[in-house]
Structure formats: structure tokens, C-alpha cells
């Protein structure tokens, strides 16, 4: 089976609210995770990454949290905007390839 997975397939938030997208992984030796955003009709695009020696990493309006104890990571989007509507994937490079999680579709209500 896949080494990464997501709790929810869809998430709907009000514009301006914060969004939290979750991801679980199974391999305790995993040391690097990446979040990708895929807008409708386009290919996935890198958002942010985090290494296992960090608990938190911040980007522009996005924060990724890594909890190695429970093998869980999350992507937080602050002040969600309509342009954030997309499918979000967590991914892990392992065994010479990138393994993608299931994906969460984020919808932003105006």
C-alpha cells in the first residue's frame, strides 16, 4: 500500500478562514515530505517541503507541521482565498520515486 494517506477527500472553507489539510504516513524512517497543489486542468505544483529534523516550516500564508510521534503532517493555509481552491497532495520521496497521498480537494466559498 501507499506510505502516505489523507484523512479527508474534500474540504470546504469560507473565504478568509484558515484551512488545515492533514496527511498520515506509515514509515517511521521517512525523513522528507513535500506538499503539492494541483489546480483544475493543471499539473501538480510544489508548495512547501519539510524535513524530519523540523517540526514546523512556514512559507507565504502556508505552514507545514510535522508530528513524528504520531506520523502525521498537516498543511495550514492562512486566510484562504478563492485561488487556493485545488487538490492538495502530500508526497514522500522514497525508493527512488515520489509517492503521492490520496489528495484533498479544497473548495473555498465566497
Amino acid at each position: 500500500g501507499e506510505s502516505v494517506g489523507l484523512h479527508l477527500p474534500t474540504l470546504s472553507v469560507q473565504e478568509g478562514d484558515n484551512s488545515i489539510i492533514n496527511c498520515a504516513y506509515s514509515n517511521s524512517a521517512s525523513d522528507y515530505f513535500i506538499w503539492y497543489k494541483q489546480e483544475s486542468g493543471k499539473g501538480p505544483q510544489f508548495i512547501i517541503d519539510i524535513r524530519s529534523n523540523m517540526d514546523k516550516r512556514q512559507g507565504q500564508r502556508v505552514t507545514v507541521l510535522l508530528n513524528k510521534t504520531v506520523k502525521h503532517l498537516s498543511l495550514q493555509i492562512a486566510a484562504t482565498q478563492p485561488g487556493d481552491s485545488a487538490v492538495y497532495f502530500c508526497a514522500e520521496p522514497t525508493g527512488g520515486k515520489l509517492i503521492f497521498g490520496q489528495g484533498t480537494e479544497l473548495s473555498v466559498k465566497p
Partner: protein
Amino acid sequence: DTAVSQTPKYLVTQMGNDKSIKCEQNLGHDTMYWYKQDSKKFLKIMFSYNNKELIINETVPNRFSPKSPDKAHLNLHINSLELGDSAVYFCASSQDFRDEQYFGPGTRLTVT
């Protein structure tokens, strides 16, 4: 300038036909990939090439044959197309598999 380009964007064909999808990257990357995305958005790697050499072949039917004429190109040829081949196919490139991958816009293949 497009970093990773694919042609065609859409491909509609009948079962049993043979078709090709082309991919080019102008990023100077050493590694290129083909992914398949199904109707539930599940994204799975099919092949990876590093400097024109096959590195990963994820138990893809041998009807699928990738070809890398040079480091900047990775084409995908599919023989005897089946209904289950209908999906969106993405090409991607990176310097190494642990580096950020840049994806093309995808090719939506519909087999009727």
C-alpha cells in the same frame, strides 16, 4: 517559457489503437517521469528516467513503452489501447527524485 511541455493536451482514440504522448523539459534536469492520474485524482508514478536510462518501471503493462531520445525528452508510446488506459498522464522532471518535481500540464487520454 514553458518548463515542461506535453503534447497533445487531449487525446481521444478507440480501443486497440496505438498512440504516443510527447514530453519536453527545458530546465536542464537529469531526471524525467511519467505519472498516471485516475478519475479519483490518485497520482501514481509509471516510469522514471535519469540521463536517458530507465530507473523506475512501476509494473506498468508492457503495452506502455517510454523512450528518451535525449535528456530533455521523454515520450510515452502506448500500444493496443484499452478502456482502462483512460486517464490523465503527466510528465515531470527534476534534478534528482528527492528534488522538487516540475509537472507538465497533462494529457487527457480517453479510450472509447
